[in-house]
């Protein structure tokens, strides 16, 4: 066997193994969501389905799943816009203006990236704090928390992108009489589209996927986010895997689509040092 063929073969085998162990749970889950109930529950499991149907999707859409998906979509979109606006202003100041307290703000932002993933340590204090502020179980509480959790990453990604733009752009804009805001929004940000996309994607995924705060800070079914709805389904359907897998599939569809389209942006965002586990 020539080396190129052998190399290609190894590539295919390793690629297939990665596909199997990495995407296996997702593919097996999507497949299960489309199979009839008795076939899912049959032991030993049969990899090839006899028929595919959407009965489990009907079951869950008749429950509280769609309102939860809608609530999460709204939370995620609000998070994206708020984090991009506040984040680009902060990123600009941190990168372009030498103001007093800049290093303190820089520290708050940078430390906020991993801190925001410290859900376990933060949730009880946050809960007590929100009760005190009277925000508990209101429509504002989850968007506010999600903005705070995702803003540090957004600032960091945008700051990295602005840092890569020459200050000559600012000088040229100043000669044309543009102030700082116009320079930022009309000259600089349009040149940072990939970073804006990456930041938006991070915020969207972060808000859409959040569970712990969502399970604690709201009680009203109308405010319940999608991940909490899926978790509650687990208690409700128990070992009836079909509807559970259908709700899991629906929850990852937006993520997978966003990934196939913007995956490269996200990878470049990740590698720019904006890292959250």
């Amino acid at each position: 066997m020539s080396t190129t063929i052998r190399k290609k073969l190894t590539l295919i085998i390793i690629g297939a193994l990665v596909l199997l162990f990495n995407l296996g749970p997702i593919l097996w889950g999507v497949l299960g969501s489309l199979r009839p109930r008795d076939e899912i529950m049959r032991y030993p499991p049969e990899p090839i389905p006899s028929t595919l149907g959407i009965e489990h999707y009907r079951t869950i859409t008749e429950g509280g799943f769609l309102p939860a998906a809608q609530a999460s979509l709204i939370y995620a979109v609000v998070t994206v816009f708020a984090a991009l606006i506040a984040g680009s202003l902060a990123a600009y100041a941190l990168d372009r203006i030498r103001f007093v307290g800049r290093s303190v703000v820089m520290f708050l932002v940078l430390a906020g990236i991993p801190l925001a993933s410290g859900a376990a340590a933060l949730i009880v204090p946050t809960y007590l704090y929100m009760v005190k502020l009277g925000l508990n179980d209101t429509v504002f509480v989850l968007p506010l928390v999600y903005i705070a959790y995702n803003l540090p990453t957004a600032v960091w990604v945008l700051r990295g992108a602005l840092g890569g733009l020459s200050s000559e752009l600012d000088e040229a804009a100043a000669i044309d009489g543009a102030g700082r805001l116009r320079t930022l929004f009309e000259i600089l940000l349009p040149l940072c589209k990939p970073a804006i996309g990456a930041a938006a994607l991070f915020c969207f995924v972060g808000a859409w996927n959040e569970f712990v705060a969502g399970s604690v800070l709201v009680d009203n079914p109308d405010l319940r986010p999608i991940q909490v709805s899926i978790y509650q389904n687990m208690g409700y359907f128990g070992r009836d895997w079909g509807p559970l897998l259908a709700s899991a599939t629906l929850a990852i569809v937006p993520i997978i689509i966003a990934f196939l389209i913007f995956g490269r942006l996200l990878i470049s965002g990740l590698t720019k040092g904006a890292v959250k586990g």
Partner: protein
Amino acid sequence: MMTRANLIKGWRRNGHGLLYVAPTVVLLLLLLYGPAISGFYQSLFRLGGANAGAFIGMDVYATVVSEPGFGKVVASTAFFVLGSVIGTVTLGFAIALYINGLDDVSARILQIWVIIPWAISSVVGALLFRWFYMSDLGLFREMLRWIGIPMMDPMSTGTGAMLALIMSAVWKKLGFAVILLLSGLKAIPQDYYEAARIDGASALQRFREITVPLLAGPLLISSVVLGIADLNTVELPLIVTGGGPLDSTTTVALSIYQKAFSQYDLQRAITLAIITFVVNIVLVALYVRSVRGQEE
């Protein structure tokens, strides 16, 4: 000497800077740092019961730490976090090295494949992990049966459950480590390897003397980030094992969550949360230092 014009310019610079960062700073102080600080303050007072509001100081910390269950939770947490971080970084490093040797197109496809479990939510990830890897109706155990290695129910022993929990964390976060380490590998100039090869260094020597030291930054950053994520994950133990059997997979994160929101023991929960928060701060400080180191 400071002229009047300079003074105005300085004021304006500071004013603009502070104005631009104000929304971000206010949001972070109010919603991220505020709760943490207020949580510590509140943990010093009795949160409910007969003497609600009474100052108890650090006594409750001493009580919580000396309770018999505490050592067990710390041990499970340490085992879970260390096992997951070591597993994720080692496997991620191997896959990153492999992808680094591929052509661009295959490398890009594999990167996107490998990152997908990281991008889906922990709730869904944990659910699908159980379904594929742990259930007797899942394909993983069936495939092991095909090749003649029957696997028992991982939930039948504490060790089995812990291994399943660690594996779920490795599966979920692997792509993150791969992407981070791969970008580190790409940043190593090829000339270093050329020069070493000319000097007669073996592949192993090149790996040990060039790759590993130059990758120390990304290795440290990914370990710290993964450590924080694993230390704080509620969803994985909650859904993959439920903390069982017999609390053998109850990590501190799950313990806080259950104490606060199913047993309504806010006092113990907030005390444990603040202890965890202190560990988080140490890890965050390490993170900030290593990211700053990378930036220079």
